[in-house]
């Protein structure tokens, strides 16, 4: 059984990453903070009697499920909004957007690309991450950011190892392509990825 100190240490170590990951997924900082808090409470209430070593996997699974719950609620709310606005005759274009579906790549040609400072690069990466399809982003975050192996990532995502590899590969390609638009050499990345 984990002690409160072990839980506190674990949460302190992951809370910032969890918040940013959630914010990229739901695109709303306040909602992301709520989701992270919900996930923390669920971990303490339901899995507090588990050893601290199991916390990373459990927390990630809870976090991903809480995000999915949020999207489902959003979807239902958007449906009602669309229905009501259609009665009112308002233009509700874009409100029925399903975050679970593939997100289209938008044109970022208005971004400054001549001198890409570090903070701007991070912003670009954040935006590129937000644009990724949900499953690709989930795979990338778990596999590379949370440093989980393929099997662990597959278990959390509920898919096969092969799917995880595919999602990860596509995510990295999409991110790399998005970054290349803004000057890849600033990141010190190889161009070999584009020669495939």
């Amino acid at each position, binding site marked *: *059984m*984990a002690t*409160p100190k072990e*839980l*506190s240490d674990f*949460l*302190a170590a992951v*809370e*910032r*990453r969890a*918040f*940013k990951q959630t914010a990229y997924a739901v695109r709303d*900082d306040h909602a992301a*903070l709520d989701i*992270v*808090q919900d996930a*923390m*409470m669920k*971990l*303490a*209430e339901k899995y*507090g009697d588990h050893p601290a070593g199991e916390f990373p996997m459990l927390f990630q699974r809870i976090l991903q499920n809480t995000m999915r719950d949020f999207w489902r609620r959003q979807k239902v709310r958007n449906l009602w909004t669309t229905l009501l606005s259609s009665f009112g005759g308002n233009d509700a274009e874009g409100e029925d957007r399903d975050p679970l579906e593939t997100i289209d790549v938008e044109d970022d040609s208005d971004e400054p690309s001549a001198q890409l400072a*570090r903070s701007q*690069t*991070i912003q670009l*990466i*954040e935006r590129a*991450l937000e644009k990724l399809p949900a499953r690709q982003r989930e795979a*990338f975050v778990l*596999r*590379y*950011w949370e440093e989980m192996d393929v099997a662990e990532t597959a278990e959390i995502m509920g898919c096969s190892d092969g799917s995880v590899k595919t999602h*990860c*590969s596509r995510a*990295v*390609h999409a*991110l*790399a392509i998005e*970054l290349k638009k803004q000057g890849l050499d600033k*990141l*010190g*990345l*190889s161009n*070999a*990825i584009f020669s*495939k």
Partner: protein
Amino acid sequence: MNMHKDNMKNEKNINLMDDNAASNLMVEEQIARNIVELLNNRTQHLSMAEEQRLSVARNLAVNRLAGLQAQAAGDGGINQGGHVLSWFGRHVGQYFEQHRVMSAALVVIAMLLTFFAVQQFGFNNNLENSDAFLLASDLPPEAYADKGFVAWLDTN
């Protein structure tokens, strides 16, 4: 001889493809590492409000765990789930703790069954007493069903 050469060529091609795949994988991982390094850097620069909110959330979770553990310790190890049904085992207790509606429904059903059982027992008991009274009486049982006899008893 030609077949042997073809085989060698195929093997070389396969090796080249494997090398390419491994090389691509390495490049992908390198890109991912660089991106993650930047993202990690970003997480160190949250706003004060965000940091405070995360800290509050963490403290709430830790206090919740501490409260649950204190409650479990206070129950003396017998009632770890904080529920009477934990006497049937820890997992049973946890089940009923997590499914409060089901627990409440079970308690109501048990109360109703007890009520009906008591009612039934009381009804049977009354029947037995009536039968015993009639059999032990000086008058035959038909006399009590005779309205004329009851009227005669009242007038006398």
